[in-house]
């Protein structure tokens, strides 16, 4: 199975998407995550394993537990995408504004 298939497979499940979204905001342990979900800690660990195998999460020791965080590479990719694409829209809107003489409401 290719890396892309693995990522796609990992994200095909809504529970795993929800877990990834939660962890993207706050790195968490399986116990913390299970506390907020109607599934067992064991099931959470299994989902986290799939996300980790797909390269979306990485593990770090947190005392006797393991804390999961989103791997830095996709996040820095997101930041650079938003900076790049955001700058392009700023340019397009500035040109449009000049042609019509409008004013920008948000930067």
């Amino acid at each position, binding site marked *: 199975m290719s890396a892309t298939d693995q990522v*796609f497979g990992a994200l095909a499940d809504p529970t795993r998407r929800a877990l990834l979204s939660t962890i993207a905001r706050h790195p968490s342990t399986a116990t913390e995550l299970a506390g907020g979900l109607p599934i067992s800690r064991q099931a959470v660990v299994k989902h986290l394993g799939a996300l980790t195998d797909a390269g979306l999460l990485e593990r770090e020791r947190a005392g006797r537990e393991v804390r999961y965080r989103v791997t830095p590479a996709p996040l820095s990719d997101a930041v650079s995408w938003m900076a790049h694409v955001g700058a392009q829209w700023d340019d397009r809107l500035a040109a449009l504004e000049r*042609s019509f003489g409008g004013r920008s409401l948000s930067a």
Partner: protein
Amino acid sequence: MTDQIERELLLPVPPQQVWEVITVPGFLDEEVELELEPGGDARFGGGKTGWVEEVVPGERLAFWWSTDGEPASRVELTLEQEADGYTRLRVVEARPLEVLDVTGIPLAGSGGVQHGPAMLAGVA
């Protein structure tokens, strides 16, 4: 998790006038070819290609675009009539993670953006 950019601009002309400018070459890109109907092809400069998702003339244009090999993103341009003949232009460009990973698979031959419901998986 979605990467998203939002912008707003107030323009002192009616929506139809803004619509005529944002759908022709010069605004989105120097080169723009848009088939203004759902599922229509979209071509831009620099090898950027895509497809049109929704068209409401003078009100809304939603399309997907991608440069060869890069993840596709969805652009939604909305025009709202304001008082005194002004138009509020709202821009949202989003790159949903689920879609990002679907389109990370190189598409045989086309090198463009994949059409159809698979693209929309997970887009709320």
